[in-house]
Every structure is written in C-alpha cells, then in structure tokens.
C-alpha cells in the first residue's frame, strides 16, 4: 500500500515537473518577447542609454550610445564608465553606484577615436526591493549642436556689444562734431552778419560817395562849358581841344558815377516783386531803345511770366539788348530774344550777330568798369553787365556768354521757377 502511494506521489511529482517546465518555457517566451520589446525601445531611442553595474563597469548600452561613442557593445561591456566621461562629475567606481538619487550634470564624453562630445548626463540609481543597488541608468544627451548655437549666440552678442560700443563712441563723436558744427554755424552766422553789415556799409558808402561826387563834378562840367562858351574866342585851337577833352572826361566820370550808383542800388533798394510777362518787357525795351534802321530785334514767343522786381527784369533785358546794338559791327544787325524751359529754371537768351567775344574775356566782361575797347575809341562805362550779373545772381540764377569771334554772341541767363506763379507760357 505504501509503495503504491509512493508510486502515485512520484508520478504526481513527475507531472508537476513537466507542468513547471511548460510554465517556464511559456514564461521564458513571454520574457523573451518583453525583452525584445524593451530592446527595441532601447535601440530606438535617440538619446544614449548606458546601464552601469554597482562597481562602475558598463553593463549594457543602446545603439545610440554605440554610435556616439564608436565602440561595439562587447568593447563597451565591462569598461569603467569613468573612462568615458570627464572626471569631476562623481562617476568614479567608488562613488558612482552608491548615489541614491537621480542627478543631472553637464559634462564631456570621450569617444573611442578620442573626440570630446559635450553631453547632459542624467543618472538614476536602480535598486531591488531590499534597497540594494542594482546599477545606475545613465542617459547622455549630445548637446554639440546646442553648444555650437550657444557659441554662435555668444559671438553674435559680442559683435552686437562691440557694435553698440562703437555706435556709442560714434554717437559721442557725432555729438562733439555737432557741437563744433553749431559753434562753426554760430561763427559763420556772426561772420555773415559782419559781411552783410560790411556790404551794406560799402554799398551805402559807394552811394554816398558817388552821390556826393556828382555835385562837384556837375560844377566842373557846368563851369567848363561856361568857359568853353564864354572864352571860345580867346582860346586857341589847342585850348579849345583840351577843354573839349575835359568836358568829355567829365561826362565819362559822370557816367561812371551814375553806373556805381545804379550798381549799388541793386543791393540797396529792394523793389516789390510781381508777376511780370517777360515778353511784354522785351517789347517795351525794343520800343524804348528806338534802334537804328539797320537793326532788327526779334522776340521769340513764347516768353514766360515770372515773379520778379519789374525794374530789375527791365534793366537786365535792356542792358543786354542795348549792348548788342551798341557793339553791332554788321550792316544788317539782328538781335534775338527768347526763353526755354530748363526744368527748375527759365533760361533766357539775347543773341546777336555782332563781332563776338574771345573766350578769354567771357568772365572779364562781367567785372565792373571792364571794357574790351579803349574808352576813347568806344565810350562805355563797363558797368552794364556787372549790374545784370548782380541782379540775376541775387534772384538765384546765373548768367554767362557763349560766343565765337566774328559770329556773334549769345548771353544766357536763368531765373528760378520757384519764384514764378505756376502758369503756362502766355502767347506773345
């Protein structure tokens, strides 16, 4: 009976073994599947995962870790973790596995090829139920790109700072320059005031002197004419000739003084500007000059209306036309007056077919008392063009001459449109 029970018990134990083997197989298979799943997760991770034994040697590493470090898993297994990471972060075999809590630090890992890679190392200790340390899980995040970006940002910051400093320096310099400029402007304004005052004084002086000279000169002229009249029988030919020269020179001096008076009036007396039809002015001048029969004065329409002192525009046109008539050397003289639109300016011209002017005299003819012929040969004060130039320049324009000896001259001058009303050219 006992043997029978033992036999039964033995049979039951055999069956138990078979059942347990089957259970172990099933569990092993389950574990394998779970392990494979975990391995897949492990190797799919973008960050490096290294599991370290309590003694500081490496137990396993995922694919990202192998790729970053350049080792095979066999080369890495058993290696001291301290050799992979920079010292001073508590990864030594003596202290590494005993750290209780999770920690995170920035350090550098060294690849098999000896390259240093900056990483953020996160460590957490694995323990069993009894609290015994099983190992340490290390996650190393490659921060090379972040470091590069940080470096770029730092450089950019330095550059911005340098630029900012330079800008501040420039601004300081500019402030100094501005103050200097202000001082210069103040000095210039003061100088201009002085110059204007001096100019006015000079103009006033010229006017007063000229005006005061006219009275004694008039007396000289009057007395000379009286002598010439009263003593014409007592004077011989030489005496009469000299008295004639005296009268002639007295007249010339009178004309010159008159010229100076006119010239000084341009700056001293300011007329009231108004809208003037320049075509009409030219017509009036033509009539007033009563030119010789062999002279033809043509006025080319259209001529603009401009905003100017009527006396002054009259003086400009009259001086230029009368000069052309005065110096005409051709039997059939022709003077043409016209105007063209030159953008911001009106450009007027007075053209003649007279003797022309050598280029070397283009500037000189506008200087005061400058004549191209001796006064005894051709009576002229040499002040007409000077007055023209002064009026035009005061109006903001300019005057010049274009000429060729023997082929006449063209005097051109501009008047800014800014001072003219916005009207089209009126028909003549």
């Amino acid at each position, binding site marked *: 009976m006992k043997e029978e029970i033992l036999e*039964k018990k033995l049979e039951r*134990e055999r069956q138990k073994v078979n059942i347990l083997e089957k259970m172990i197989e099933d569990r092993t298979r389950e574990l394998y599947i779970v392990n494979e799943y975990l391995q897949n997760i492990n190797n799919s991770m973008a960050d490096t995962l290294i599991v370290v034994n309590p003694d500081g040697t490496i137990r396993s590493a995922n694919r990202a870790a192998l790729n970053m470090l350049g080792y095979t898993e066999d080369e890495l297994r058993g290696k001291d973790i301290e050799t992979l990471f920079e010292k001073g972060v508590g990864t030594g075999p003596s202290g590494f596995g005993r750290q209780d809590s999770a920690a995170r630090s920035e350090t550098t890992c060294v690849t098999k090829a000896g390259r240093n890679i900056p990483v953020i190392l996160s460590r957490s200790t694995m323990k069993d139920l*009894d609290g015994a340390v099983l190992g340490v899980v290390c996650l190393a995040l490659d921060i090379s790109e972040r470091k590069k970006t940080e470096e770029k940002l730092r450089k950019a910051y330095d550059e911005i700072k340098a630029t900012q400093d330079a800008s501040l320096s420039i601004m300081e310099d500019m402030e100094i320059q501005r103050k200097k400029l202000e001082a210069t402007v103040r000095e210039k304004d003061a100088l201009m005031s002085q110059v204007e005052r001096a100019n006015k004084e000079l103009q006033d002086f010229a006017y007063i002197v000229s005006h005061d000279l006219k009275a004694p000169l008039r007396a000289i002229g009057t007395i000379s004419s009286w002598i010439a009249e009263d003593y014409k029988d007592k004077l011989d030919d030489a005496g009469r000739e000299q008295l004639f020269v005296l009268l002639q020179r007295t007249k010339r001096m009178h004309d010159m003084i008159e010229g100076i008076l006119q010239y000084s009036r341009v700056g001293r007396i300011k007329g009231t500007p108004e809208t003037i039809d320049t075509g009409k002015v030219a017509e009036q001048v033509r009539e007033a000059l009563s030119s010789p029969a062999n002279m033809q004065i043509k006025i080319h329409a259209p001529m603009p209306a401009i905003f100017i002192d009527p006396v002054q525009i009259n003086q400009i046109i009259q001086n230029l036309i009368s000069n052309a008539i005065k110096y005409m050397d051709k039997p059939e003289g022709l003077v043409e007056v016209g105007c063209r639109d030159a953008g911001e300016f009106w450009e007027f011209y007075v053209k003649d077919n007279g003797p022309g002017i050598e280029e070397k005299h283009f500037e000189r003819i506008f200087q005061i008392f400058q004549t191209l012929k001796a006064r005894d040969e051709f009576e002229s004060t040499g002040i007409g063009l000077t007055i023209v130039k002064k009026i035009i320049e005061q109006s903001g324009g300019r005057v010049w001459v274009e000429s060729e000896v023997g082929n006449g001259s063209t005097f051109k001058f501009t008047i800014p449109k800014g001072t003219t009303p916005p009207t089209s050219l009126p028909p003549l």
Partner: protein
Amino acid sequence: MKGIVFNLLEEFITSMLGEEKYEEIVAGCDLKTKEPFVGPGTYPDEDLFAIVGKTVAVSGIALPDALRGFGRFCFPRLAEKFPVFVTAHNHPKPFLKSVETVIHVEVKKLYPDAVLPSFTYDNPAPDRLIMRYSSKRRLCHLMEGLIDGVAEYYKTPIRRRQTKCLLEGGNECEFELSFG
C-alpha cells in the same frame, strides 16, 4: 487560488494526517483539476474548499480550527519562501500594513490573474492596528491563523478581537489587534 496554497495545504494535511490519508482525501474529492497542483498555477477555489471540507470530515477537526491551523502553518513557510517581504520589517505591525500595499502589488506583478483579498487599516494607537479583511472566499479563520503565524515569526504577541465578520453577514471582517 494559486497553486502554492494547494501545495501548502497538501504539506499541512500530510504533516497532520499522513500521506496515505491525504491520498485518500484527494481521491475522495471530485476535483475539477485533474493534474497535480504546481505553485505558479491558478486553480478553482472549489477544489481548495473540497479538499478542506474532506479533511475536516475525515479528521473530525472543526473547520475554523482547521483553517486557523493551516494559516499558522503557512506563514513561516511563506516567509521562508519570500524573505524579502518579512525581513524589511522588525515588527508585525508594519509588516501587516505592507500586505496590501507591497506584497499584493508584487504578487499582481508576477501573477496578474491572481484574485487577492483586500485589506484596509486604521491606526488608533502606536501599539494597535485595526485591520479589515474583505474577500468573496470569506476565509477569516485562515487570516486569524496567519496573524498568529506573524506573531510567532516576529516573536511579538498579538491579541486579536474580531468585531465584524463576513460569515455573520457583514461586508468585511474587522480585527482589532494589540501588539506586545
């Protein structure tokens, strides 16, 4: 019920009544399980109740006493098999409090299909513990035996007074435990 309980029951009956009687008891039960019980396996509760019922009938021992005796028999053997759960403590009170929050959690990790009783606790004084047991198996006598086994293991007397019982129509069994 896990196979380990069936194995411990076999060991308990054999030690008490002998192998021959155990074979007789098992042969006399119409068990649903035909193969031998192994520790990791899970078997119908009815099989356990059938064996226990037959043992009571054969031995003449009262069911509550049989279950208390079985609980007291089980504890040192379970402690030997799974020392990690008991060595973590040096007093029965923290151990008993860890049954629900630690031991059952670990059991579930290994055997997700295990059907476990549930415990709740009150802590009226440092040397006292109110422990409530709830299970459709209503094995409160087995729990009494296990508590006695705990007291013996930690060499700390535990006086227990049951204030509620599943077998008397309650929703749970409540034990007021005093230590020392």
